[in-house]
């Protein structure tokens, strides 16, 4: 398949623990993945099998030991920091399980920030952010407050709104429906379907099986990439 937006070939990952006798721990080898525009691929496998590790290597905060990780033509495994930053600004979005923000910044600006970074006019960016927060049932009275004091479920929804603020051509979703009630879960699944509809290539981790069955076109078991014991 040549039209893949995300394409991994021969990806390996090892951790070297310098302060624990320089133990070298191989955690992944020969990982292959190809995601076309408009497709959602679910990563499955037992806890600890490497789903999040694989996702972080695509995002670029984990360094691949070998292989190629192409996202819209950029090899994240070898790219310069500024190339990866440019990719993250316009092309690759990521909804992680953690919301990491500067304390004191209002929720509305936290969500609009990816659009500010793209140079969108501030009022337009905030309007788009407001629309997403409303869809995700974050009460308007909270928009001017920092999300750092919000509940886990509220923070997760702020994180999702931020991840969907820009129409990224490629998206990484780590447990996007975790800790959400039925109505918000439905909204998130619709957001994912809309993203697919506009042609986004999505890699997701979903423990929520019905959600996975609904949005994923294919599943990839990362256990296949566990290095064989020597």
């Amino acid at each position, binding site marked *: 398949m040549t039209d893949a937006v995300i394409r991994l070939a021969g990806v390996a990952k090892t*951790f*070297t*623990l*310098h*302060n624990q006798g*320089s133990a070298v721990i191989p955690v992944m080898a020969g990982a292959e993945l190809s995601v076309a525009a408009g497709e959602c691929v679910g990563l499955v496998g037992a806890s600890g099998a490497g789903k999040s590790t694989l996702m*972080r290597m695509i995002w*670029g*905060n*984990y*360094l691949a030991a070998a292989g190629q990780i192409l996202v819209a033509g950029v090899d994240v495994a070898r790219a310069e*920091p*500024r190339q*990866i*930053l440019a990719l993250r600004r316009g092309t690759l979005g990521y909804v992680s399980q953690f919301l*990491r*923000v*500067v*304390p*004191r*910044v209002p929720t509305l600006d936290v969500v609009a920030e990816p659009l*500010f*970074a793209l140079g969108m006019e501030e009022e337009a960016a905030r309007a788009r952010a407001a629309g997403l927060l409303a869809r995700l049932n974050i009460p308007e009275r909270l928009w001017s407050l920092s999300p750092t004091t919000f509940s886990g479920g509220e923070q997760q929804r702020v994180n999702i709104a931020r991840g969907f603020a820009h129409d990224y051509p490629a998206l990484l979703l780590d447990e996007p429906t975790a800790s959400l009630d039925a109505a918000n879960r439905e909204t998130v699944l619709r957001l994912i379907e809309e993203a697919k509809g506009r042609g986004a290539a999505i890699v997701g981790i979903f423990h929520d099986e019905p959600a996975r069955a609904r949005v994923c076109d294919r599943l990839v078991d990362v256990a296949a990439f566990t290095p064989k014991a020597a």
Partner: protein
Amino acid sequence: MTPLLSVRDIEKRYGARIGCTGVSFDLFPGEVMGIVGESGSGKSTLLSCLAGHMAPDAGQVIFATRDRGPVDTVTMSEPARRMLARTDWAFVHQNPRDGLRMGVSAGGNVGERLMAVGGRHYGTIRETATDWLARVEIAADRIDDRPSQFSGGMQQRLQIARNLVTGPRLVFMDEPTGGLDVSVQARLLDLLRGLVRRLGLSAIVVTHDLAVVRLLADRLMVMKGGRVVETGLTDQVLDDPQHGYTQLLVSSVLQV
């Protein structure tokens, strides 16, 4: 894209002792680079060499000037370097007292830098100063107060206004949030992030605070014993550190 700053093999020795050695990197327009390391790692020595406060014993610091293109600031004349420091560069000190004139009013502190680059019209200077005080969230009615009447956080914001008023392209920061209360730090971080984005600034931030670099810096350089031991994208260096020293540094941070 051409780098705004190209640093090649910078070395500074204090007698037989190494301040920093073999430091090379490129900084591109709009990039914020963090330099982390413990006390004595050479990060402040390096910053002083880059900003022209100290002459390195070897190496080049090539800055892309507006009018003359790339120039090695190590070998340029002292007046030319001072001009750069007043126009295209800014330096935010950890202690605002080192970067402010404590006996001069807040407005005067900002206006003085404008006058140093040829501003002459009092009304315009005062208007620009007021505008910059507002941008760093200092109320207009404090313009005639002296910095000594300000809190630490306000002094630091005033120092930033004084530095940025001339529209520099490169800002050096030495522990800009050090010595401030945590709540004041957050406000300053938010302010700095907004200014960097809106003005398209490049910055080099020296700090020992990993939380600060995570939120402020695009890239990270880790120093130990005067040498660079690891570089990379900020979240990659912090989430998947490769060097033993960085692993120790990251794992030593207390969780809250």
